[in-house]
C-alpha cells in the first residue's frame, strides 16, 4: 500500500486530472466488458499497459511486479478452469491417467476473452492507482458530490493507517527483542497481544490526533493546497471518442467474423 502510494506521488501522470483519468479508465473497462470480440480487450490491454508503463516511468517496481504476477497467475488459472468446464466441440484433451480433461473451442475462446478482459482491466486500474494518490482521489469524490464525510473519512483512514502500521512495526520489533516469537503457541499469543495492543493504541492515537487537529484549526473540511486539475473537455472527448471507436471496432469484428465465439 505504501509503495503504491509513493509510486503515485512519483508518477509521470500525477498532474493529470484524476476525474479525467477515472472517466477514461471507466470507458476502457466498460468497452472491454461489453465487447464480444477478443480484439477489443486486447486493444485495452495494450493501452492500459502503455499507460501503466508511462505512469511508472517504464520501471517495474517490486510492488507492481508482485501484484502483476499474482493477478496473472490467478487469472490464467481461472481461464484454464473456464476452458475446461465450458461445453462445446472438443479441440484437444489432456489425459491425466485417472481422468481426461477436454477443451472445447467455445471454452477456449471464452477463457481467452475472460483472461484478456481481466488482464486489461487490471492494467488500466493499476494505471489509475499508480498515478492517483488517495487525497487526490478523495478530492475527486468531493467534486463528484460524494458526501463530504465519506471523503474526509477516507483521507483520515489513509493518513492514520501509516501511523498504525508504524506502531505495529514497532510492537513487532519489541516482541521480537523479547523472544515473543519463540515457539508456535508463543507466536500466536504474541500476535493476539499485538492485536489487542493495536486496538488500545489506536484509540490513544485517535485522541492525540484529535488534539493535533484542533491545534491546527481543523474545521471538518479537508482542503488540498495543490488542487488536482478538474476534468476538461479534452478528457471527455478522449473518453467518448475511445468508447465510440472501440464500439465501432467491435461491431466491425462481429460483422466480419474476426475472433468471435
Amino acid at each position, binding site marked *: 500500500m505504501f509503495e503504491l502510494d509513493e509510486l503515485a506521488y512519483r508518477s509521470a501522470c500525477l498532474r493529470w486530472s484524476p476525474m479525467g483519468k477515472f472517466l477514461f479508465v471507466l470507458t476502457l473497462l466498460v468497452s472491454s466488458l461489453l465487447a464480444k470480440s477478443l480484439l477489443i480487450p486486447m486493444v485495452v490491454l495494450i493501452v492500459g499497459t502503455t499507460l501503466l508503463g508511462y505512469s511508472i516511468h517504464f520501471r517495474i517496481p517490486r510492488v507492481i511486479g508482485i501484484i502483476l504476477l499474482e493477478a496473472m497467475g490467478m487469472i490464467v488459472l481461472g481461464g484454464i478452469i473456464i476452458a475446461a468446464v465450458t461445453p462445446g466441440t472438443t479441440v484437444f484433451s489432456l489425459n491425466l491417467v485417472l481422468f481426461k480433461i477436454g477443451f472445447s473451442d467455445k471454452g477456449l475462446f471464452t477463457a481467452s476473452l475472460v483472461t484478456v478482459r481481466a488482464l486489461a482491466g487490471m492494467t488500466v486500474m493499476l494505471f489509475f492507482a499508480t498515478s492517483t494518490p488517495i487525497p487526490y482521489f478523495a478530492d475527486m469524490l468531493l467534486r463528484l458530490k460524494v458526501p463530504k464525510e465519506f471523503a474526509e473519512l477516507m483521507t483520515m483512514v489513509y493518513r492514520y493507517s501509516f501511523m498504525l502500521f508504524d506502531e505495529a512495526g514497532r510492537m513487532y520489533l519489541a516482541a521480537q527483542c523479547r523472544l515473543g516469537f519463540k515457539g508456535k503457541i508463543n507466536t500466536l499469543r504474541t500476535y493476539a497481544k499485538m492485536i489487542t495492543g493495536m486496538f488500545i493504541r489506536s484509540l490513544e492515537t485517535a485522541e492525540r490526533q484529535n488534539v493535533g487537529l484542533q491545534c491546527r484549526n481543523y474545521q471538518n473540511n479537508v482542503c488540498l*493546497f495543490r488542487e488536482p486539475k478538474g476534468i476538461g473537455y479534452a478528457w471527455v472527448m478522449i473518453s467518448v471518442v475511445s468508447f465510440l471507436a472501440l464500439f465501432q471496432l467491435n461491431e466491425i469484428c462481429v460483422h466480419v467474423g474476426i475472433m468471435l465465439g
Partner: protein
Amino acid sequence: MSLLANTLVECKNLSFEYPNRGMALRDVSLRIEEGKKTAILGPNGAGKSTLFLHFNGVLKPRSGQVMFDGRPIVYRNKELSQLRKEVAVILQNPDDQIFSATVEEDVAFGPLNLGLPRDEVAARVDEALSLVDMSHIRERPSQQLSFGQRKRLALAGALAMRPKVLIMDEPTAGLDPHMVQEVLELTEELHMKGITLVMSTHEMEVAYSWAEDFKVVHQGRLMYSGPADGLFTNRSLLDMLGFQAPTVYRMNEEMCRSGLFDREPVPRDMTEMRLKVCRMNRRSVGGMRIKEVDTERVPTIIEVHGLISQGKAVGYYGSTAKHLLAMTLPSDVRLPGLTGCLDKMIDGREAVLYAEPKLVPSIVHHINSLAQRYELNIKVN
C-alpha cells in the same frame, strides 16, 4: 497597567482534571510576556503539555481563567479559530500534528483551515518552508521524512499560521546536537522577528542559554516563576524537582568560590563563559563584519572562499542567509552560525557574518550587549 499591556497569555487560578486521572493542574497563575522567550520546566507528567493546551483553548479549565491579549478566552468555534491563529502549539510528537500527505500540503493545512486566499496560502507555505529549510523537499510524502525533518515540518506548519505566540512542547527532544542547534537558531530568528516564544524542555542547559523567563511546574502546581538566577539559587526547589543547575552556571559558582572570578556577570552558555575568561585575562577578541544578503546580493563562491583563505571565520545568521549561501556553496561546506562565529572571534579571528538586512540591527545589538556585559571591545560593522 503597563505590565498587563505586555502580557499576552495569562492564567488565573487555573485548575484542570482529566477524567479518572486526578488533577493535572492546580491553581496555576502565570503570565507570558510579549516578545519574551519563556521556558517551562518540569519533570514528566508535571502538567506542562496540559498547560499548553489551555493556552490555545483545546482544553477548557475546570476552574480559573485563561486570558489572551487581556481578554478571557471564549470557547466558541469562531473565537477559538481566531485564538489558534494567534497561539500556535507544536506538540512533542510531530506525528500527532502532521496530517497531510506531502510536506507542502501539510504546511498549507492550517492556513487553508483559516480560509485564506490561495495566493496568501502559497506565500505562507513558501516562507515557512524556507524558514525551516525544507523548500527542496516540498513535494515529498510526509511519511518518508526522518524524525528531525518531521519536527521541522511540524514547526513549519505552525509558522505558516503567522502566530503571535509560538508554544513548543519539547522541540529539541530526540534531535541530534546539530539539529538542536538549528532549532535554537531558528527560534532566535523568530524571536528577533517579534514572535513570543514558549518552550518546555527537560534540558536545563538548553533552557538556560535560551530563555529569559523561567516557570517551573511540578505535580500540576506552578513552583517558580522568574529569572534563571532565582531558580538556581533555590537549592531546596532544585532538589525537590531532581534538577541540577546548568554546567556553566555551576562552573561559574565554583570559580567564584575559588576566587578566580567575580560572580557577576553570570554566563549563560560556554561562549559567554569564554568571553568572561577573555575579560579576566584581558585578551582581545576578534571583530565581526556583517554582510547583508538578499536575493539581489547573493555571495559568490569566490567571495566566500576568498574570505576563508584570508583566515576569516565565515558564518551566516538566519534562514534566508543560510538558504542563499546553500545555493552558492557546495553541499559539503557547512558554515557556522552566530554562536560559532563568536567562538572563532574569541579565538582571536576576524569573522564575517552573512545575514538578511532586517536581522542586522538585532545581531549588532546582541554583540554590543555581550561586549558591554563582559566589558570587552568587540568591533562590529
